[in-house]
């Protein structure tokens, strides 16, 4: 597939590591005992990173859901998280904008470094509200607010204190255009968002996240509640968004991961089993578990 050929490999010429990036290889293998040998050669020299999870563990009460995960997220690329249900994909993703903070008895351990500021997202000193403004999220099911289409997209902008009507209007329009839903809604911006179809609602939610101009985008199975045609539109959209953002996407759909992502991480039982370029993971996985999963032998 030309699309895969075009996107699956990490883009060349981008491998020079500048000061504000952290190469995966700067951590010695013995410090990452949980990582299999398979994940090590996942290109020691990656393009500039947007974020880097380092020894990230997460606990629901006493239950450890994530075990010291090391995962780099390359800027302007799509990283897919795959793995069987309950393996911790969504838990991992939700660490990035501190949604876990809303629930009692949860605990993070380790670091998620966000570049270029090199702030540790999960540090207690970091305000989760600030992080959520900087990192957009799209959820499993479309979750528009009980407001008009316009006000849904303007929500994040208003939270950021933008009051100017012209600026709001322009930025809402830009966001709706960049998520390819403008033509469908431009004549009914003041209608309730609940009047839209499921696929339209989900693209509206992506527009809502994009309008706030986040630094990166998290997507938690954004197509799981949609039919194939609506899913296809969202996948096209993800490929567009990649030009501006680092995207981290959780998916149960192997085809989707292979079509839409540049890098893929396979998780199992709260551990990262293998990480690498998407073509490598799907055509030449190093680990037996990864191979079994991507070929459909388990999970």
């Amino acid at each position, binding site marked *: 597939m030309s699309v895969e050929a075009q996107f699956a490999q990490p883009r060349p010429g981008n491998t020079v590591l500048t000061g504000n990036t952290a190469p995966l290889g700067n951590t010695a293998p013995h410090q990452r005992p949980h990582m299999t040998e398979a994940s090590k050669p996942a290109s020691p020299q990656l393009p500039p990173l947007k974020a880097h999870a380092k020894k990230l563990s997460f606990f629901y009460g006493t239950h450890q859901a994530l075990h010291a995960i090391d995962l780099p997220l390359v800027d302007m690329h799509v990283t897919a998280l795959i793995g069987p249900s309950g393996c911790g994909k969504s838990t991992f993703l939700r660490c990035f*904008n501190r*949604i876990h903070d*809303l629930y*009692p008895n949860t605990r993070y351990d380790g670091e998620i470094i966000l570049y270029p500021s090199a702030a540790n997202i999960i540090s207690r000193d970091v305000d989760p*509200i*600030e992080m*959520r*403004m900087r990192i*957009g*999220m799209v*959820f*499993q*099911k479309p*979750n*528009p*607010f*009980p*407001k008009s289409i316009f006000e849904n997209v303007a*929500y*994040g902008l208003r*939270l*950021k204190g933008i009051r100017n009507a012209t600026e709001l209007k322009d930025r809402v329009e830009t966001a709706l255009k960049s998520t390819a839903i403008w033509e469908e809604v431009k004549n009914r911006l003041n209608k309730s968002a*609940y009047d839209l179809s499921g696929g339209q609602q989900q693209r509206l*939610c992506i527009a*809502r*996240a994009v309008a*706030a101009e986040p630094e990166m985008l998290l997507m938690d199975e954004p197509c799981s509640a949609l039919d194939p045609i609506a899913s296809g539109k969202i996948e096209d959209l993800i490929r567009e968004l990649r030009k501006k953002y680092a995207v981290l996407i959780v998916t149960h759909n192997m085809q989707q991961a292979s079509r839409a992502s540049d890098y893929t991480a396979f998780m199992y039982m709260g551990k990262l089993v293998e990480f690498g370029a998407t073509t490598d993971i799907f055509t030449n996985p190093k680990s037996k578990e990864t191979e079994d999963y991507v070929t459909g032998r388990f999970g």
Partner: protein
Amino acid sequence: MDSAAPVAVSAMPQGNQGPKANHGSTPREDQIAALVKRRNASNAVAGGIMFAAAASSVAITCGIVAMLTLESLPFFREVNLWDFLTDTMWAPLFAAPRYGILPLIAGTFVTTLVALAIALPIGTIIAVYLSEFAPHTVREVIKPATELLSAVPTIVFGYFALQVVTPALQTFIPDLPTFNMLSAGIVMGIMIIPYVSSLSEDALRAVPMLLREGSYGMGASRMQTAFKVVIPSAISGLAAAYILGISRAIGETMIVAVAAGMQPNLTLDPRQPAETITAYIVQVSLGDVEHGTVAFHSIFAAGATLFVLTLGLNVFGHYLRKRYRKAY
């Protein structure tokens, strides 16, 4: 409904070509047929019992409406309906009786309004706090404590109004009469708070977590999430809670009978004493009014008025619920 049983039984006799056709049906099939038959029978009995329970509430409502209509008919034979609705004086026990319901409606209206001014804001704030802000441990203490308020008998509330709230109010409003609608309304509002807060909280908690996560995920604070997303999503449930609170206030009897005075008084000033519809019904039904007189039948006319008021409110509430129901 009971089609399953005949099919299971009748299928066999027709199957003449089958190897077991001469047996009629196998023991296994007989067993299943008997089981289905028994189950259908018990289903029919259970369905009948449940229908009777549901029908009884309808029958009782119809009975009440019939009773109110029949008993107030003699009243409306003596009193013109137009006079009843427009006369500004209610004095059924005077030598020259006047039957204008307006003073009673005004009394009911003012006490209810005062009660709602207390109960709706406080009840909503409690609900929002418990549902969106309170840590689990705090919620576990405050929620039962609030609900304990609704266990206080209303007569106790009535004397609380008369003995505590009125004297307290008199320090601010020196010429406040002992019996006044303000004090009765305030205490009635306190009484209604748990109804409003408990139902409102249920409505707020029914809003899916996914919507809250969407709002927090954009960087909203608790306050912004509560007021911009959760409350608008729960609006139909909140409306239902408010309507129930209003119905409680309109129907409340003891507090107003004790603390608001028993003099029909056409005024919208809450500092005045006045009588509500319910208080009048208590006054007359406890007094020595002769059965069969116009004065006696007037309590049914007053009761019918009350019924129409609350019915209208409930219909309005039902409309609101349908109008603003959100499909999450």
